[in-house]
């Protein structure tokens, strides 16, 4: 009889565990308990997310992770990075392996609605482009009929590519590869004529080549690729925290708050919006369930949107991207934060 009692107890314990697992506890509480933020990033796109010489992840997307860690835990270094291929990223997020995905992911209807993700904003407005070796003598994507194209599987670029070539009655030979690095290896070995992905990643990739002048990025941009961080459905408070962490960086640039002057401005200014952002006035932090200096931590530890852009992918970096669409709305770009009030 002992055995069946034991089995019964085991079953009950199992069922209890199952119920506990089924309840989605608050991500904010989980992150605070753990003391680190788990962030899913690209395994290696120079400028956006790539390990530096000391093995630490750095980049424009990585700064989103750091900003959220600074807001929630007060320490931008308290992040555990999980490098994810494009094929496994959504599964990793849905299963709770990461709290947040900041991995140049295109915001699409299906991913938002059907895959039950919550895109919290756009940190880079991108479009899909093509890169070819210069000695191929191609100057437009319309001349690419019959070409062999390296493409990362499971990305929106794969779908855009199929549509673009079909609509323009051109043929191509897709060479599916699993990661950005492998695509580069294949492309450099001449196993494909064309490498296609988001224009920003093309620039990043070209920057890492031994001979960047030997390659050209074709002028055609064949799609809209708004890239941004995302979280799971069902935890709205956590979504708000990530959304407003990104907005805090954007607003800080607009108001001229930088990592250098933020601490000084936090003593109080004439601009009530800056005061609310930096926690001098109002209780915006408390509304998110955070300390009132959450945005101040972001700006002093990570910097504002423009600083992060210039440091990681701006024109003075090897990636060398112009602000373009990603300039502030006041400068004619699309970067815009809703008001802090």
């Amino acid at each position, binding site marked *: 009889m002992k055995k069946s009692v034991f089995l019964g107890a085991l079953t009950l314990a199992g069922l209890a565990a199952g119920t506990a697992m089924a309840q989605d506890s608050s991500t904010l509480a989980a992150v605070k308990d753990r003391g680190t933020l788990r962030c899913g990033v690209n395994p290696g796109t120079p400028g956006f997310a790539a390990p530096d010489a000391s093995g630490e992840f750095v980049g424009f997307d990585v700064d989103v992770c750091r900003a959220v860690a600074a807001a929630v835990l007060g320490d931008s270094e308290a992040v555990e990075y999980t490098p994810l291929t494009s094929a496994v990223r959504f599964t990793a997020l849905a299963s709770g392996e990461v709290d947040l995905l900041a991995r140049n992911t295109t915001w699409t209807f299906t991913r938002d609605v059907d895959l*039950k993700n919550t895109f919290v904003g756009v940190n880079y407005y991108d479009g899909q482009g093509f890169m070819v070796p210069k000695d191929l003598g191609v100057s437009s994507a319309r001349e690419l009929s019959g070409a062999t194209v390296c493409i990362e599987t499971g990305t929106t670029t794969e779908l855009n590519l199929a549509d673009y070539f079909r609509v323009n009655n051109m043929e191509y030979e897709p*060479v599916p590869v699993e990661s950005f690095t492998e695509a580069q290896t294949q492309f450099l070995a001449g196993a494909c004529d064309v490498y296609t992905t988001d224009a920003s990643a093309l620039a990043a990739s070209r920057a890492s080549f031994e001979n960047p002048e030997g390659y050209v990025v074709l002028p055609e941009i064949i799609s809209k690729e708004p890239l941004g961080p995302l979280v799971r459905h069902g935890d709205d408070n956590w979504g708000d925290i990530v959304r407003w962490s990104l907005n805090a960086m954007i607003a800080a640039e607009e108001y001229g708050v930088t990592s250098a002057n933020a601490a000084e401005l936090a003593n109080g200014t004439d601009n009530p919006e800056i005061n609310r952002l930096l926690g001098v006035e109002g209780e915006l932090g408390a509304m998110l369930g955070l300390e009132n200096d959450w945005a101040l931590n972001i700006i002093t530890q990570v910097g504002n949107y423009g600083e992060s852009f210039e440091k990681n992918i701006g024109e003075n970096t090897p990636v060398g991207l112009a602000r373009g669409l990603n300039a502030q709305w006041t400068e004619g770009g699309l970067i815009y934060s809703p008001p802090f009030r």
Partner: protein
Amino acid sequence: MTTMTDPPNDQGFRLSQLIYDTRYRSATIQVIALIAFMVIAAFLVRNTITNLSALGKDIDFGFLFSRAAYDINQKLIPYSSNDPHWRAALVGLLNTLLVAILGCILATVIGVVAGVLRLSNNWLTARIMTVYVESFRNIPVLLWILAFMAVLSESLPSPRAFRGEEAEASMWLWNTIAVTNRGTYIPAPVWGPGSAIVVVIFLLSLLAIWAFGKWSQRRFEATGHLLPNFWIKLAILVGPTLLVYLLLGRPVAFSLPELAGFNFSGGIHLRNSMLALWLALSFYTGAFIAEIVRSGILAISKGQTEAAYALGLRPSRTMNLVILPQALRVIIPPLISQYLNLTKNSSLALAVGYMDLRSTLGGTTLNTTGRELESMLLMMLIYLVVSLVISSGMNFYNKTVRLKER
């Protein structure tokens, strides 16, 4: 034998008998095990459904009928990006089966040759085979696939190298085969008028070879005289077909690969991803098959060889007629497992960008639709069915070579 002396137990059935009475104990244990199994299964299913609904997801296979929107480079049946996901999965499945079948054939050839040669009296040959078997058996197959791919794409010339007056690279075999880092292009047959007759003649000669083999075997058993079977079969295979081909004025032409635009066009394109996967799987599984063949041969008593030699049979004939047929009984059962392993290992294809079932249904489809659970379940089901089919087919073959007990 003995009469029952104890009066029958009229106390009736007591609950403790379920455990202490050997008549009931095994049934009790089985019932408890069944209940435990069902509870665990129910727990897993319930937990999955609860967690999925907590995430706001449901289980729905409807995505299979929506537009796939991605292209597949190697397709054995017509497919375009406008076709639904199930058709993409079918294209992937056919690619899986193609590489599995080609792999099983090549692995068997390699394995039998290597297994026999490893027992060779030639010291060097035997050692080389030992090195081959041990190195392939002890390194993970994924590394071999990547290594083959790296060799193919890094060391071979790209199509651009074939261009120009003073090209760096040239085609093989009188300009008929182009070996590039995108794959190998071989001539493709172009079926002209009258080519059907050639094909029919060819099929008929295959039938004739089979019939001749039967007849020759019966003649041998009746008279003991052996015909030069191999040469006669070769003559039947080549002779009539060639004759008809020439008589009809060469109806089957060959389209040769030539440089056009970015790539070679014409001919059949064997992609490097497929070649790398095929070769790596074949050499890897071949090493295991070599060991199976070796063990099968060693299982046959040495007396059989000595007896065959005593009858004056040559070593090659001894191997073919005496040793291998008996060894097959030992070889076939483990060989089935190797065929299954090869088929399942082909799911590593994504590593080199070969669009098999894992890369279509379990890769791009899974990714773009986000239906992980459904895709995975479907994929597991398909691999299970494929494996069971291979296994039952091979078991049927095993029955025909098994020792006939009369």
